[in-house]
C-alpha cells in the first residue's frame, strides 16, 4: 500500500531493507543461538547512516522523526527483531536527551549516538520497581559537584554493548514519584559495573544485563531534566518512543508472514499447496489484514506526532529551552494515548500473527532450523517492555475518560 512516504523516507526503507535481507537474514540464526552481539551488522548500519535517521541535523542526524526511526526498525525487524534493538535501544537512550537535554548535553552526547559510534541504553527497571517506577530504590545523593549513585538496575536492554545510558534514580525517596530523577551515565565510569546477563526467550541477539552502581560519581551537569522530574522524563520519552517498539513488533509480524507464505505456497499435501486450502487462505487473510491495519495506525500516528516533534526541535534550537517544553507550549496535546494505542495494537497483532504463522507451517514451523518459531519468540517481548500492554490499556482508558470529562 502507498503511504505517500517522502523520497528520503523511501530511501531509509530501501536501505534498511537491503541490509536486513542481504546482511542480517543469513546470520540471524547464528546470533539467536550464540547470543553474541552483532557488531558486524552494527558496522553495516553505521556505514549506511541508519543510526542517525531521527536525529536533528545539528547533532549529526538526518533530520527525521519518529516515522523515520520506525521505518528503519520495521525493515530490520522483518529479518531479525533482536538485531533491530541495536538501533531501537539507542533511540530509547537518545529520546530523553533529545527531549529534555540542555544544549550542552545534546552537543556532548547526540552526535555519537547519531553516528552509531557509541550505542545507547535506557534503564529504569529494578528488582522492586517494574511498572511502578515510583518504587525505585536506586539512589542519587548530591555531594559537591557530583551525584553519588547506588543501587541495582535490571533488565537493561543493549546492556554492556551500550556506552551511554539514560538511567533513573531517586534523589528524594521520601517524595516517591516526585523524587525520581534522570541521569546520563557513561560506560567505564568507576562504580558502574555489569551483573548477571539474562538468558531470554527471544530477542537473543540483544544482551540484557543487570547494572550495579556502587558509589558511582555522576557529574552534576549530567542530571537530565532537573531534580525530581524523572517521571516526566520517563513518561515524556515513552510518549515518543513507543512507536519504536510498535515498529519492531510490526516488522516481526511481517517477517513471519513472509516466511510462512513462502513455505505454504511450496508445501504440498493432498496434491495441492497448503496455501490454497480455504482454511489457510482465511488465516492468511486475517494475518495480512491485521498487519496492514497495524501499519496504517503506526504510520499515521507517527506522522502526526512528528509534526509536533520536529516543530518543537526547531523552536528549541532558537529558544534554548528543551524540546519537551517547546512541545508542551505549542500544543496542549500529549501523545500518551495514541502512542500507547500504537504499541498495544502492533504488539498484540505481532503475537497473534507470529503464532498463526507457526500454525500455518505445521510441524516445521515449530522447529528451530526453520525461522518462523523465532519470530514468535521475538514477538512476545513487544507486549511486555516499554510498559506492559496492561499498562498501555490503563493509559489509554484513563486518557479516554479524561477527554470525555473535558468535553462534558
Amino acid at each position, binding site marked *: 500500500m502507498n503511504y505517500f512516504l517522502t523520497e528520503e523516507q523511501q530511501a531509509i526503507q530501501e536501505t534498511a531493507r*537491503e541490509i536486513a535481507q542481504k546482511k542480517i537474514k543469513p546470520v540471524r540464526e547464528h546470533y539467536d543461538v550464540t547470543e553474541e552481539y552483532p557488531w558486524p551488522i552494527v558496522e553495516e548500519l553505521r556505514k*549506511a547512516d541508519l543510526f542517525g535517521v531521527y536525529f536533528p541535523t545539528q547533532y549529526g542526524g538526518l533530520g527525521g522523526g519518529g516515522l523515520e526511526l520506525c521505518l528503519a526498525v520495521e525493515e530490520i525487524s522483518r529479518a531479525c527483531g533482536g538485531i533491530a534493538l541495536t538501533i531501537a535501544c539507542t533511540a530509547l537512550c537518545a529520546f530523553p536527551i533529545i527531549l529534555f537535554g540542555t544544549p550542552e548535553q545534546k552537543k556532548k552526547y547526540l552526535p555519537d549516538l547519531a553516528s552509531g559510534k557509541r550505542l545507547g541504553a535506557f534503564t529504569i527497571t529494578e528488582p522492586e520497581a517494574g511498572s511502578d517506577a515510583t518504587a525505585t530504590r536506586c539512589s542519587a545523593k548530591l555531594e559537591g559537584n557530583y551525584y553519588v549513585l547506588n543501587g541495582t538496575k535490571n533488565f537493561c536492554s543493549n546492556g554492556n554493548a551500550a556506552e551511554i545510558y539514560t538511567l533513573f534514580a531517586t534523589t528524594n525517596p521520601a517524595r516517591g514519584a516526585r523524587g525520581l530523577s534522570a541521569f546520563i551515565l557513561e560506560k567505564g565510569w568507576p562504580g558502574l559495573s555489569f551483573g548477571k546477563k539474562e538468558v531470554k526467550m527471544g530477542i537473543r541477539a540483544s544482551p540484557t544485563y543487570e547494572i550495579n552502581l556502587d558509589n558511582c560519581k555522576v557529574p552534576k551537569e549530567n542530571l537530565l531534566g532537573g531534580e525530581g522530574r524523572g517521571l516526566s522524563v520517563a513518561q515524556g520519552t515513552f510518549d515518543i518512543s513507543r512507536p519504536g517498539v510498535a515498529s519492531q513488533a510490526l516488522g516481526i509480524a511481517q517477517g513471519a508472514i513472509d516466511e510462512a507464505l513462502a513455505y505454504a505456497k511450496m508445501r504440498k499435501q493432498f496434491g495441492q499447496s497448503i496455501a490454497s486450502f480455504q482454511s489457510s487462505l482465511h488465516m492468511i487473510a486475517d494475518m495480512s489484514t491485521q498487519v496492514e491495519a497495524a501499519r496504517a495506525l503506526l504510520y499515521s500516528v507517527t506522522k502526526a506526532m512528528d509534526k509536533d516533534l520536529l516543530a518543537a526541535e526547531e523552536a528549541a534550537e532558537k529558544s534554548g529551552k528543551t524540546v519537551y517544553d517547546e512541545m508542551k507550549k505549542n500544543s496542549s496535546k500529549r501523545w500518551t494515548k495514541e502512542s500507547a494505542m500504537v504499541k498495544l495494537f502492533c504488539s498484540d497483532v505481532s503475537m497473534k500473527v507470529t503464532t498463526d504463522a507457526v500454525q500455518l507451517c505445521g510441524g516445521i514451523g515449530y522447529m528451530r532450523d526453520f525461522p518462523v518459531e523465532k519470530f514468535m519468540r521475538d514477538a512476545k517481548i513487544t507486549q511486555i517492555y516499554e510498559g506492559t500492554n496492561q499498562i498501555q490499556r490503563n493509559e489509554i482508558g484513563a486518557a479516554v475518560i479524561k477527554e470525555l470529562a473535558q468535553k462534558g
Partner: protein
Amino acid sequence: MHIVVCIKQTPATANIQIDPKTGTLKREGMAAAINPFDEYGIEEAVRIKERVPNSVVSVVTMGPPQAEESLRDAISRGVDQGFHLCDRAFAGADTYATSYALQMGIRKIAEFTQKKVDLIICGKQTNDGDTGHVGPGIAAWLDIPNVAYVKKVEEINDSLIRVHRMMEDGVDVLEMPLPAVIAVVKEINEPRVPSLRGKMAAKKAVIPRWTAEDIKADKNKIGLGGSPTIVASSFNPPPRTGGVKVEGATPEEKAKNLVAKLLEMKVL
C-alpha cells in the same frame, strides 16, 4: 591519494544469454546494474580512502546515456565524483578500443580535477564480456605496472602498493610503485550497502559527460572502427547431460557392471 575506479553498466544477472542467431549478447529487456566485479573495486577504493587521509575517489564509465545511473550508484557507495565517457563514436568497442578510451578519460580526469591519479582499480572482468583484458590494457596504454586477480591490498602509501594476487596454486605477494593498476577479485572485500547520505549526494551530483573529442581520443582507435577484434561466432556451450547410474544389488555386482560398460565403450 587520487583513486580512479573504472566501471561498466552490464545486465543485472549472473546468467548472460547469447542470441543464437546473431551471436551477440542479449541486452533487450534486461535490467542494468554495475558489473558485480566492479562493485568490489568501488568498495576497495572507498576502503583505501577511509584508510589514507586526504584521498579522493573518482569513478569513470564508458557507455550510453543510461550508464550515468551506474555512476550515481557508485557515488551512493562512497565515491566522490563520477565521469561519463559518452559518445556514439565509442560504440562497438572491443577491449583494445575500450581500454584506450578509458585511459584517455583517466588522463582527462587528472587534468580536470588537477589531481594526478595514483591508483586505478578495475574489476577482474565483466559479467557480459568476461575477457579480463581492460584493466591490464589500461596499464599498457599508460605504461604503468599492473596486477590482476588482487584479493588483498596489504599496504598502500604515497609511493607504493603491496597486494596479494590470487593464483590457482596459492598467493603471490607483489609490490609496485604508484601510479599503478589493480584488477580485483570478489574475495577482496564485501561491498557495503549504499548509505543514506551517499544516496542524497548521488541524486545531487553533477556528472560531466565527455565526448571522444573532449578526451582528445584518436578517432582511429575508438569504437567499432578502432577495434581489431573480429568475433567469428559466440554461442552458449551445450548443457552437460546427466551421468548414468550403474545398477547392481551388491558393490561387487555394481563393479562388474561398470567394467562391462567400460569394455563395451572400449575405454578399457
